[in-house]
């Protein structure tokens, strides 16, 4: 009777330990991966025109200026929009957090860009055009 109880409680504690271990694995897995994965997804998101149209006015203005300038610092964007640099910086950071623009630090400067916007411009230089007809 007693021996039976002991073996049962031992079995229970073993099971509990197993469960604990699995929970630990799960926790460590999510801790390490989730934020990274989320950032990655957001980075791939980028900005599309329909989303741009659905933005509130203040964010749309910043996003459109980035679209126009290609790659710019908050100060450059502020010059275009006529808003204060600090405010522009806050909006751009918000857009970057949302994954719509890319934020890159180069030394002390922080640049914002639409992802891949400048991608293939360099490779496009080739002035010969195929001629049709004539």
């Amino acid at each position, binding site marked *: 009777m007693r021996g039976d109880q002991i073996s049962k409680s031992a079995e229970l504690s073993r099971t509990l330990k197993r469960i604990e271990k699995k929970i630990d694995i799960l926790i460590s897995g999510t801790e390490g991966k989730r934020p990274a994965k989320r950032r990655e997804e957001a980075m791939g998101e980028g900005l599309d025109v329909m989303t741009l149209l659905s933005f509130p006015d203040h964010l749309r*203005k910043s996003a459109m200026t980035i679209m126009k300038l290609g790659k710019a610092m908050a100060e450059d964007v502020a010059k275009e929009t006529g808003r204060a640099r600090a405010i522009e910086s806050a909006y751009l950071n918000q857009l970057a957090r949302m994954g719509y623009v890319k934020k890159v630090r180069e030394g002390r400067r922080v640049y914002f860009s639409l992802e891949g916007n400048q991608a*293939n411009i360099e*490779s496009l230089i080739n*002035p010969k*055009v*195929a*001629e*049709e*007809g004539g």
Partner: protein
Amino acid sequence: MNPGTVLAVHSYKGGTGKTLISMNLATILAKQGKNVCLIDLDLRAPSLDATFAANGKHWINDFLSGTCEPMDVLKDFSKEKATSGRLLVALANPSMEAIREIVTKDKRWEMGALRRLLSLKEFLTNNLAMDYVVMDTSPGLSYGSINAVAASDFVLVVSTWDASDITGTQGMIGELYDLLERRAIVIMNKIPEQLIAAEEMKERLADQFKRAFKLPVMDLLPCYCDILRQERATIMALDKPDHPFSKSLVEIVGKVEKAGEKPAPPLPKP
């Protein structure tokens, strides 16, 4: 240095005359010695291929998908059309298969397409020194047409006399061009001829449209049945420069040039 002007020719409904106006604008500009690139961005119903026959392997679709370079899709028609400026044309793939493919494209593809369109604009105006890029777009609010509007400097909206067309155009002005801060100019096309026969009536009507759209209205073009009877390959401005339609378009070109020079005025907040 004046970087080139990128013009999107757009409309709410189909069949308003976007393509006819685009190709005539482009050829008139090229004939006047400007370097012009005409792009068919109506990927769902390509139409420039009927006028500009090209046997290239690449289409603007391929460029937007990222599978070829801009030089692969640009064809030089300056010799064939005897224009003093350069006339480059990029065609959309008219095969049913290609259209089917375009219809199934998702948001991600459209985002890439916009990026490539922006880089193409940069390439055409900077590297190839194009004075004008004319984009013939698909009607209404679609990813493709909004991408074109977003990549343009200003929009030429073509509307007909039809009530739903006018309401739709008003909607696009308020909810698309204004939000994207694009200047827009309206061309009214296919107006019943008797309504604008007298100059006074034409002016009154133009004024009404101006108020309805709260935008400058460039011209009221009558419905010319003889244009509809022309073959698709005909470019009115080249083949019949004395036709009233061609003459009106030459005037429109003058206004477009002027509009292109001005820096965009800040838009009033809605």
